[in-house]
């Protein structure tokens, strides 16, 4: 009834995929549903949040998301590069798929 919408919200599966095996790259994202993920986006942006839903365009709904925007400032005199990052938190975000570069499990720092 819902085409190829795949959503898990509050542990209620709206649409069961027709197969439970991993067949194509999008199936790997399906494995991350309702998990926290790391999304690298265009324009030096990164998102960390809980994946609630996605579609074939990689439009995504992320909950409890932290967006990190990284900028490089170059010191006029010393020409050294200064990396700055700005973070902000958004409770529920719809992300348009054409900005997404990669999707991965959250990076473990330690």
């Amino acid at each position, binding site marked *: 009834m819902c*085409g190829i919408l795949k959503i898990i*919200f509050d542990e209620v599966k709206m649409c069961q995929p027709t197969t439970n095996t991993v067949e194509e790259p999008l199936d790997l994202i399906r494995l991350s549903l309702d998990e926290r993920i790391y999304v690298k986006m265009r324009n030096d942006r990164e998102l960390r949040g809980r994946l609630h839903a996605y579609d*074939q365009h990689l439009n*995504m709904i992320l909950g409890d998301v932290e967006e990190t925007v990284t900028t490089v400032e170059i010191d006029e005199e010393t020409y050294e590069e200064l990396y700055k990052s700005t973070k902000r938190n*958004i409770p*529920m975000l719809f992300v*348009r798929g054409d*900005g997404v570069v990669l999707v991965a499990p959250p990076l473990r720092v330690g």
Partner: protein
Amino acid sequence: MADSLRERTIAENSMVILLQGLQGQVTTVDLKNESTARGRVVNVDAFMNIRLKDVLYRDRKGQLTQLQELFITGRNVRYVHIPDHIDIMKTIESQLAKIHRVRNFASQGGGRKEYTKKSKKHSGATSETKRNEKIKGLRTKET
């Protein structure tokens, strides 16, 4: 509600349907050009083109402008902030129900159907099982 079959099909098969369910809500749309627009959603089409009204538009420098109406091309959307009180599942389900009501509207009176019954997959029966049923039916007739 999208007027064309093509738009309804596109919306039904992507997450845009959630944005369409946000009609009437006040949301913030982050654009790719680093500006943001906060206003009431008038309409969202299958291509994610968004019409907002009573908008506070903040450009990349932070300058605020008030606009009565704003049309954002889908390609310019980066994020849409979903209001906290929205139940995502319910919104999507009600949007899908609207599409199916429209689709079934004509068929009840025997009028033009958007799809023939054959191509509908959600009934759970594949074309093979239907063929088997037909064969079974023929066999019982013969005996």
